[in-house]
Structure formats: structure tokens, C-alpha cells
């Protein structure tokens, strides 16, 4: 991980996205939209999308924010990125369909999304620590909300204007690379000695009772 933080303006250009390296630490400024499982399922299965110009607003933030309604409008109470890996079934399709350039979430995504990111020229950014309260003041404005009645506050699509939002780190680059997959491969080598230390035979299998 590099110590320097790169401050990016949204929307990213394809060249900017392709220039980002695994492990690089960044913030983003501009407009982001939110969604979770329901957004993905509806977008792909039912072609139900919020009225957003995705060419101009193509940073998809995976989150279910805690929101409070006040006389002055909506306020963010806390905004904790959610696990993107849960959306893997639809990840690639949504990236291609909307031409997304930036995904932000927790954890990472799988090979299907990685292929779409490489194809479109886009990255996935993963959160650093539990950070919902640190991100909150970086949301400058709640711009609009879609599908609030149908989906409720957590699954609705919120549009936020953010400033120096982050930091996040690049866990999936635009070349198919994945920080966590690399990390997992190194861990797999260690597992041999961990099993040995625990007295688990290398050829251990569980008792099988099904044909």
C-alpha cells in the first residue's frame, strides 16, 4: 500500500481508471449513487433503473446508509460500505449495462465482475476499516432519492455529492487483478503448515455418508 493518497474527481475517465494500481489509496469527489441487492436484481431481471444519466454519474456506491429525516431534509447518520461480493451474480451485467467506471464497497467481487471491469475500464474500491462516521461529513449534499417508497431507506438509491470521500484502496484494477485473490494465494501456502501444527493429516477427508 502506498502512503500517498490520490484524490480523484468523478466521473473518472477510462484512462484514469486504467491508470489505477492494486493497493493504491484514493479519495473521490463528485456524485455517487447507492444500491444493494435489490438494485442489482431489479436492474438485470426487470430492467428497472432509477432515472439517472449513468454516462455522467457512474460511480456506484454499495451501501445502505442510516438516514434521518429532518425538517430541513434528509441527513446521513452513518454510511458504512456493504459487502460487494454478495452482488457477484449481477456484478458484471450491471457494470456493462450502465457503463460504470467506479464501484465502491466492502470486501471485493469475483471473476465475473473482474472481466467486466477490465472490458469497460473500471475499478472496485474497498473500504478501509469501519468508517461510516468518518465518511459521513464527506457527504456534502443529499441530492435525491429514488425508489424510497418501494424499497425503504436501506435499499433505496440515494444520490450523494461527496468531497474527498474515503480513503479507499483499489482492490480490483482495470486489468483483472485482485488484491485479495493475490493475498489468498499467499495464504494457501501457509495453510499446509497450519494444518500440520493442528495435527490435521494432509489427506484428511470428512466421513462421507451419501452416495
Amino acid at each position, binding site marked *: 500500500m502506498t502512503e500517498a493518497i490520490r484524490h480523484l474527481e468523478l466521473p473518472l475517465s477510462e484512462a484514469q481508471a486504467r491508470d489505477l494500481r492494486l493497493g493504491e489509496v484514493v479519495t473521490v469527489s463528485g456524485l455517487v449513487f447507492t444500491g444493494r441487492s435489490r438494485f442489482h436484481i431489479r436492474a438485470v431481471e426487470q430492467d428497472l433503473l432509477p432515472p439517472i444519466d449513468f454516462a455522467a454519474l457512474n460511480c456506484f456506491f454499495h451501501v445502505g446508509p442510516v438516514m434521518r429525516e429532518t425538517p430541513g431534509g434528509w441527513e446521513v447518520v452513518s454510511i458504512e460500505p456493504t459487502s460487494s461480493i454478495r452482488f457477484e451474480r449481477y456484478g458484471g451485467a450491471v457494470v456493462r449495462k450502465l457503463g460504470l467506471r467506479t464501484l465502491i464497497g466492502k470486501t471485493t467481487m469475483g471473476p465475473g465482475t473482474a472481466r467486466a471491469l477490465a472490458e469497460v475500464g473500471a475499478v472496485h474500491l474497498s473500504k478501509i476499516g469501519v468508517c461510516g462516521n468518518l465518511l459521513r461529513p464527506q457527504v456534502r449534499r443529499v441530492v435525491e432519492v429514488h425508489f424510497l417508497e418501494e424499497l425503504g431507506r436501506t435499499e433505496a438509491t440515494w444520490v450523494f455529492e461527496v468531497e474527498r470521500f474515503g480513503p479507499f484502496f483499489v482492490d480490483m484494477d482495470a486489468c483483472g487483478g485482485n488484491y485479495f485473490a493475490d493475498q489468498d494465494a499467499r495464504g494457501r501456502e*501457509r495453510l499446509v503448515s497450519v*494444518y500440520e501444527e493442528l495435527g*490435521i493429516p494432509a489427506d484428511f477427508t470428512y466421513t462421507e455418508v451419501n452416495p
Partner: protein
Amino acid sequence: MISRETIASAMYEATRLAATNLPPDVEAALVAALAEETEPLARAHLKESLENARRAAGGDGLVCADTGFPLFFVTAGSHARVEGGFGALQDAAREATARATADSFLRPTMVDPLTRANPGDNLGPGMPKVELRFVGEGDGLEIIAAPKGGGSEIFGTSYRMMYPADGEAGVLKFVIDAIRDGCYAGKICPPAIVGVGIGGTADLCMKLAKEAALLRTVRRAHPDPRVAEIERRLYAAARALGIGPMGAAGVNAVLAVHVETAMTHTAALPVAVNAQCLVGRRWRAIIASDGQVRFTGELP
């Protein structure tokens, strides 16, 4: 006689405190983990998380926005008397959960599993979940509010019915594989508090794992030395995986491994794993028979 109103207000307050504070033993363990990690990303994950929690304790936000499943664990002395009878506990939990949700200490997260409809107040069949047990001859009540985050519950739950021939090797492999899978990419929000249940029926086994993760002081060894030895070995093994905070390269995949056991069938060896995330969200209300309530983040 403890009034229903006292119980509802204690449940609300314990929920609010759980949602906005790190329990002292969890915070101390996170600080110790930070002192140990050397990789910049692993350190950054812990530093951000501790700073995030300090803000929550100062009245700015929540220790984590995914306040998850509203769970209450109630321990009653066998001479405790509750206004309206013990059935009032469920009503009090509903009232406390709805109020904590309206006040934004709980996120409206509970939905119908089939329609996915969200009532907006975290109430519905099975939720909030209240576990009641009777311990000792006392006349008071203790309530632990433990809103359980999604990451640790969704990605940190595993169960397998094994057989005596699978033995200790089977148990240890199952647990260490579950920890490795759960920690991948930070799914369960490591460093996790990992609860392990061995024995019982399927449901008792998972209950043991959940209570080992949620209701024990971090790293306080099991009183049975044989069980404590299994905890020690699994803890050491988890630290040798090369996985640190949030799945980054590092040492602290876990803050603790707690194991609980129950008698089981002579033909069976059930094992369950249930993880708690790094914020270890829980707070305890101690209600005396005269209605006096004391709150603490520490466990008995």
C-alpha cells in the same frame, strides 16, 4: 416486581449504548492488535475503526451502521418477578427495538425473507429475538442487547454434522477453514471474535457457537482446561494464516476463539462456528428487583 416499563427502557438504553460504544474488553483487544500489526493497510483498517468508534462514543454516529439483527439475551434469577409475567419481555423488546430504530440507533434492516418487504421498524416474526434463561436463586434480571451485524452473521456461520471417526482433526479443520473463508476480503470484519459450538443437537450446537462469540469476555479462557487448550490451539492457528484486519495481510484474523461444548449423541460430532465482528457490539443492563438499573459494557 420489575415493571414492563423498566424492562423496555433498559432494553432501549442497552441497545443505544451497544450501538454507540465499543465494549471495554473489545476496545483493549483492538488496541493491542494495532500495536502488533506492521503492514500499513492492516494498521490503517484498525486505526480507522478505532477512530470511527471514538466518534460514535462522542455522539457522532454509530460504531457500525449495519446494526443487524436485534438480539436480546435475558438471564433471570429464579425468584425474579416481572409485571405481567415473563411474556412481557417480548413486548418490551419490541417496544425498545422500534424506538431505537425510530431514533436511528438501529438501521431498519429486518425484512420478510420471501417478499423482502421492509416494515421500517425491525419488527416481525422472530424479531427481535429474545433468549431467556434462568440462572441461580436471585430476584433480578440481566439483559444483554447484542445487535448482530450482517457481515459476521452472513459470512461467519458454518455448521457440519460430523461423526466420531472425524475426531479432533475434523473439528479443528472445520473451524480453521471457516475462519479462513470468513476472513477472505474482510467478509466477517476481522479481527473477529469466533465462537465454536461442539456437541448438542444441531440447534443447540449453533446456539453454543453464537453465545461463545457474543456473550464471553474477549479471550477469557474456558474454565475446563481441555476446552481452553482447544481454544488456545485454534487461536494460534488463526494467527498463523497470514490474514489480518479486514482480510489484509497481517496477524490478527481473530481477537479470540471461544469454544463451548454440550453432551451429544454417541453417533454424532456436530460442530458449529459463529463469528462476531470486530466492533463486538453488546451492552448489559442489570436490573434489581426494586427496579434500579445499572449499565455496563463488561460481561459477568
